[in-house]
């Protein structure tokens, strides 16, 4: 069929999907006897109306950027990595092991080491499903889901039996030493003499996330590996013809993907909780799928979509706090956004394409 202009494809379509999702959410809120306008106000106020709100929104955004990039890289290789959840959880383990292993003198030294630990553990957790897919044809969707469960169980074991400080009742690691605490964005702002986002979890990892977007863009569109990943993702027979090894690409793409998901732990484990707790990932791995979908598998799109979901998360939390709208409804709203921007994408796209075709005929 005829294509529509690029801007309509990348901006208009998700925007309309979003409006539709919000419209239906509004109906649901009306149905339970609350005011949608009020709800929207609370969400916008709570997430974007103050530096405090932003401090949380950007924190969530950072998480989603990493998991979104993870899904995106795998997607370009034609692989559907649903294992972001488990890879991020294992990334947390990597962070905790690295930070607790040495008496780090300064966060600037601890950060790269912890990031490497996070990436390594995330990558290794993706390696097994990748290898199983490449060598044995076990479907990566199934194996990565299974590995989410295994990661949860493994983490449970590690926290209860290995990392838990003697005498503690809490299934959590010891607190990270003061010197290894990452600077919060609020502290950095204060350093510049600006009062911004006091007591919010957004931290220096946010910049790491931006850098990751840039690096992933370079990787996918500017390096040979990225070229091979994209080629393989589009056509396996053609990749074979060109001498691109499916095993190699599957494994490498999943390693990068897992490493990105793992890196999320730098934000939530090292930057926020400052120790490893159970269930630290809180579904961010799955949100990453929606983020990648909505972001059209482009880092810039991923960044914007992550921001949207960061807003939904923070705004949703506020909604539960300040209105009698139940928390479950927030999950419904988030699900609607995922549904419309992801699964029902074509529902919006097709009429739009037809509209543009009609407009073009008129114009001609």
């Amino acid at each position, binding site marked *: 069929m005829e294509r529509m202009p690029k801007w309509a494809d990348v901006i208009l379509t998700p925007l309309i999907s979003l409006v539709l999702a919000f419209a239906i959410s509004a109906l649901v809120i009306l149905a339970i006897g609350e005011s949608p306008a009020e709800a929207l106000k609370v969400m916008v106020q709570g997430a974007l109306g103050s530096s405090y709100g932003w401090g949380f929104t950007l924190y969530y955004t950072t998480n989603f950027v990493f998991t979104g990039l993870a899904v995106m890289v795998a997607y370009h290789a034609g692989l559907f990595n649903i294992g972001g959840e488990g890879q991020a959880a294992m990334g947390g383990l990597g962070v905790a092991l690295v930070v607790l292993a040495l008496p780090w003198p300064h966060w600037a030294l601890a950060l790269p080491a912890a990031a490497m630990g996070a990436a390594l553990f995330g990558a290794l957790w993706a390696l097994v499903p990748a290898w199983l897919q490449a060598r044995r044809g076990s479907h990566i969707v199934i194996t990565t889901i299974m590995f989410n469960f295994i990661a949860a169980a493994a983490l449970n074991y590690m926290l209860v039996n290995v990392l838990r400080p003697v005498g503690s009742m809490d299934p959590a690691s010891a607190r990270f030493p003061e010197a290894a605490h990452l600077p919060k964005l609020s502290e950095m702002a204060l350093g510049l003499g600006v009062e911004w986002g006091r007591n919010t979890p957004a931290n220096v990892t946010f910049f790491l996330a931006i850098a990751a977007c840039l690096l992933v863009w370079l990787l996918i569109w*500017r*390096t*040979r590996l990225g070229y091979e990943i994209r*080629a393989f993702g589009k*056509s396996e027979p*053609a990749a*074979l*013809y060109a*001498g691109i090894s499916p095993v190699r690409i599957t494994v490498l793409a999943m390693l990068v993907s897992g490493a990105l998901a793992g890196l999320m732990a730098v934000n939530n484990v090292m930057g926020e909780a400052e120790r490893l707790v159970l269930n630290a990932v809180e579904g961010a791995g799955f949100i990453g799928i929606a983020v990648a979908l909505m972001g059209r598998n482009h880092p810039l799109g991923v960044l914007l979509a992550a921001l949207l979901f960061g807003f939904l998360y923070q705004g949703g939390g506020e909604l539960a706090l300040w209105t009698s709208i139940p928390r479950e409804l927030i999950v419904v709203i988030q699900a609607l956004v995922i549904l419309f921007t992801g699964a029902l994408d074509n529902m919006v796209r097709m009429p739009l394409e037809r509209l543009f075709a009609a407009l073009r*005929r008129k114009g001609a």
Partner: protein
Amino acid sequence: MTATPAPAIELRGISKAFGPVQANRDIDLVVPRGTIHGIIGENGAGKSTLMSILYGFYRPDAGEILVGGKPVAIADSQAAIRAGIGMVFQHFKLVQNFTVLENVVLGAEDGRLLRPSLSRARGELKRLAAEYGLQVDPDALVEELSVGHQQRVEILKALYRRADILILDEPTGVLTPAEADHLFRILRGLKDEGKTIILITHKLREIMEITDNVSVMRRGEMVASVRTAETGPAELAELMVGRKVLLRVDKPPARPGAPVLEVRGLRMVDAEGVERLRGIDLEIRAGEILGIAGVAGNGQTQLLEILGGFPEAGARLQGEIRLGGRPLPLQGPGADGRARRRAGIGHVPEDRQAEGLIMDFTAWENIAFGYHHAPEFQRGPLMDNAAIRADAMGKIQRFDIRPPNPDLAAKSFSGGNQQKIVVAREVERNPELLLIGQPTRGVDIGAIEFIHKRIVALRDAGRAVLLVSVELDEIMALSDRILVMFDGHIMGERLPAEATTGDLGCLMAGVEPARADAGGGAG
């Protein structure tokens, strides 16, 4: 079948642009009822676009369509079907794991339930099959049918929807000669029943054989419409290309040098345990084109894939391959496409859309495909996209790839221009050995002439060429020596000068002609 005054189809002033590309410009066309109408033209001339407009796949920017004398608006393919127009695409649109019957009914169900349609369709299918010689087993799965039979299913689909006008876009490109013959018998039968047929093809022989009238397109315009009886191949070729075309390959005699490729006792058993190659021995010398003739599916594909470094998964291989005297591994990491390229083997694969190109990549990205490791395309850890684009621009110009826009996705080029992208990429690397499968499938005469010239030039530069083609004419015209493959082995060897079509045809069918001293290459 008395002459009806209103033509089956009349197009008036049809225009269609894709961005800057004017694919159709002010096209007029009249197709009388009950005739077979040929449409020819160079790659990218706009034939498929015009037919897609007629079938409601694209909307024209301007112009009018009349069916049976009445103006109609064809908004989509549903409307086209209502107007009695059916289309058989070059790339079939069948559901592979449905049966023939289910495919025929799909989208034309009577109501919500499939059952009544199915039993009704079964009867109808039987009638159509008997009437037009379109025999296919209604309960066979489409994926198990040969290409020729799949095409029959496409035709049946159209007829089942009561199409009066049938459009076939390059229907013979994928058929064996015997299948093509059968198709033509079917088409004649349809014509005798009063159906109107529009046939797009690059093969002038087919135009001369079966059409009543022929229209010629060039660069988006309709340049001539003539009665087939009043023209000839040379005139048509000239009309198409806008200059005189050599329908024969003009090549000096070969001066073969040292052996470049030696294959000894090559055997292959595929994953299902079927022996696809049963001991192939062959040799190609520098400055020589070795043609492999044969009906598709007799092991040529496997031979090319093994030499190119990507035998199908699970295959077991045996034998020996030497390039320039050095043995090449048959399988394993040192035997992939990249290693083969590094060893000096270029490869134009038989299936350009599935293998030779990434259809979603731009032309410039495709022109580096397989050679993306080349040092001149790197800049530090990154790819030197500027260098690749510059290289692509040069190839696009030298090969006259149209439109000359390196940023267009491969899928937006016409079939012939896609092929030129692949040929340009492989030939210009000046490989020791060029493997080339179906080099001119779906390619127009002007481009065929060009591609043939380039192959001969490569040979004259002292390179070895292994040519696989199901087109006997092409094999006879290009090859310095001909091997005929049948059922996984080499039936015989001939020199083009002494070979006759009948002789080769016999070998291709697995019959040893009455000639005791048949070829030296038999294995």
